[in-house]
């Protein structure tokens, strides 16, 4: 018996979506079995996730809060992956972005008392710039010296972690705790609940302006990728570097630019998190947003709009997963989902034929 993979000439449009959903379903079943094996109750876990993530307008708002950094880092990954640049460093770029934004009020770059309409844009700029520079390093190494970007981005994640820890434990530490002093209110991104005095229904809803950054960024990334000359170059280079070079595309420049923008998007996510949610810089500010972003980008097939949907799903998983025991379950589910997606991809691209071997004689 042999298994043959035959390329599909034109995969029907619905197939890709159907198989993606099926893959997530299968992944959840497999994860459920594992949860049951280690003594958990998968059905209760999943119901808990659903309730804790979507059960009320309040928790839905919390889900969106978790989805915001995922959306921006997911876009960062989707953009880089489109050019087949494996930026695994969104985590580090996120941390640097958070640090850069914090520096605006903690260093401080702007004097205390500066009005919010100056502080917020400066923080956005500083966060995006810090993340962008952190992305630029592996980009330049890859473009100029041919250094494998997977390794460099990963290693820079660890460096970024220690860098933030240094500031949080050292110069910016508040009374020796693993966090800085709280930001002044001018440095807060507005949340829905801030408007509860005029719209009572917003009371307690923590969704913040960062989500809008993410949605706008998704639109811009889509426009650039699908409709612009530059996006055409990225797609061309992503499919075949040699064909792109042959078509006159400056690969090295594009690698650097894509890495810088990717890093800036992740950096903006970090800014949004410190300015909109945590209101200070602290150790362990990210539960691995930058890594989940990789799965999100893949689940969305690098399509910016689908990244929005995927990040909400994973936002739910992270939010609700905090209370699930054992603590590794969400990470495990993510790994299983990614594996099922990869296998699913095969079913989209190929028709799988299982044939009994035809005797030759």
């Amino acid at each position, binding site marked *: 018996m042999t*298994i043959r*993979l035959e390329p599909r000439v034109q995969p029907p449009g619905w197939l890709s979506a159907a198989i993606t959903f099926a893959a997530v379903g299968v992944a959840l079943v497999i994860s459920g079995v*594992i949860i049951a094996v*280690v003594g958990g109750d998968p059905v209760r876990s999943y119901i808990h996730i659903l309730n804790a993530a979507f059960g009320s307008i309040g928790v839905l708002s919390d889900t969106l809060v978790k989805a915001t950094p995922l959306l921006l880092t997911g876009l960062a990954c989707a953009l880089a992956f489109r050019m087949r640049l*494996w930026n*695994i460093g969104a985590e580090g770029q996120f941390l640097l972005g958070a640090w850069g934004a914090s520096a605006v009020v903690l260093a401080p770059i702007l004097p205390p008392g500066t009005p919010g309409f100056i502080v917020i844009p400066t923080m956005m700029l500083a966060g995006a710039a810090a993340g962008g520079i952190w992305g630029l390093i592996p980009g330049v*190494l890859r473009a100029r*010296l*041919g*250094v*494998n970007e*997977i*390794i*460099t981005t*990963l*290693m*820079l994640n*660890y*460096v970024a972690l*220690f*860098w933030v*820890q*240094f500031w949080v*434990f*050292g*110069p910016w*530490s508040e009374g020796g705790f693993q966090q800085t002093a709280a930001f002044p209110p001018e440095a807060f991104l507005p949340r829905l609940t801030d408007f509860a005095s005029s719209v009572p229904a917003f009371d307690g809803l923590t969704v913040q302006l960062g989500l809008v950054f993410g949605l706008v960024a998704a639109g811009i990334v889509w426009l650039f990728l699908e409709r612009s000359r530059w996006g055409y170059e990225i797609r061309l280079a992503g499919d075949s570097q040699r064909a792109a070079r042959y078509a006159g595309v400056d690969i090295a420049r594009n690698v650097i630019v894509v890495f810088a923008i990717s890093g800036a998007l992740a950096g903006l996510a970090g800014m949004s998190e410190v300015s909109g949610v945590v209101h200070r810089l602290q150790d362990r500010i990210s539960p691995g947003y930058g*890594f989940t972003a*990789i*799965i999100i980008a*893949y689940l969305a097939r690098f399509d910016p709009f689908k990244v929005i949907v995927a990040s909400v799903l994973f936002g739910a998983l992270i939010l609700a997963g905090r209370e699930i*025991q*054992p*603590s*590794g*379950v*969400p*990470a*495990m*589910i*993510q*790994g*299983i989902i*990614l*594996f099922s997606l*990869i*296998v699913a*991809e*095969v079913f989209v691209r190929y028709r799988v034929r299982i044939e009994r071997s035809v005797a030759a004689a």
Partner: protein
Amino acid sequence: MDFSLILAAGIATGTALLFAAVGEIFAERAGVMNLGVEGMMLMGAVAGFSTAVSTGNPWLGVVLAMLTGGIISLLHAVVAIHLRADQVVSGLALTFLGSGLARVFGEGLSNAGATALLPRLTIPLLSEVPIAGKIFFLDQSVLVYVGYLLVPLAWFWINRTRPGLHLRAVGESPAAADAQGIGVYRLRYAYVFVGGLLAGLAGATITLAVSPGWFGEQTTNGRGWIAVGLVIFAQWSPLRAAFGAYLFGTISRFIIDVQGVDTILGTTNPFQAGRSATFFLEMVPYLLVVLVVVIGSREAARKRVGAPAALGTPYVRGERGA
């Protein structure tokens, strides 16, 4: 500080990196890039440690660690070899899965306390050799000696034997190997599995010999990724990988030891444990990997020896080229 002690401890720490890197060299020499080393190591670490805790037999732990690493590596093998999926994404998925599963199965293990560890040996005559004897052969874990044996064996296997010739052919030119009747898929599965076995062993080396215990993802703390970086630096040679692994082992030991000292050269030690400057010290190994990979890439470009030509590309009979 007694430098021979740091070096001796560094060799032990480096042994885990060595196993993982040599395993990855085997897989990559066969043309399959497996970025799941970190996940496989964590699985090996948790399997080895929990077996040793529950049975009291560390050897059984080693065996189970290797099997666990090997078995989950097959997941990557199926996806990368038969299903022709992108090896980068599949490897990442393996790391996610391995880390997640290891944490699930390792739940509660961090409070398991002490367990029987692998024996430590001193080699009678060799340990008497000045300097080197104390570093390499005095009171080292038995796995360290396994590492000493593995390196020349791996080199010999790859370069001087028929199976090694076939391994290299499969990684360089699978079409050529296939035309000579060499089972490309079979060999790729075999070497990905070997890579998994060794990554599992690397995990057990940490939890059962070098720094016993289970600390969640902190157990490996990115050492699987460092091993992947070392492979590039080593230019796919086990001998260079050994050098790199021991060097990194020593550096990471040195970083720990430096934090225990009050004064350096008569001044207060800025890197003493508890001071924030230690975080810069902690960065060093990771920055060093970046440096080492840059060096490796440049050297490879200059000498025009590079990755196995078919690395990362699935082989389909009848399809030419990449």
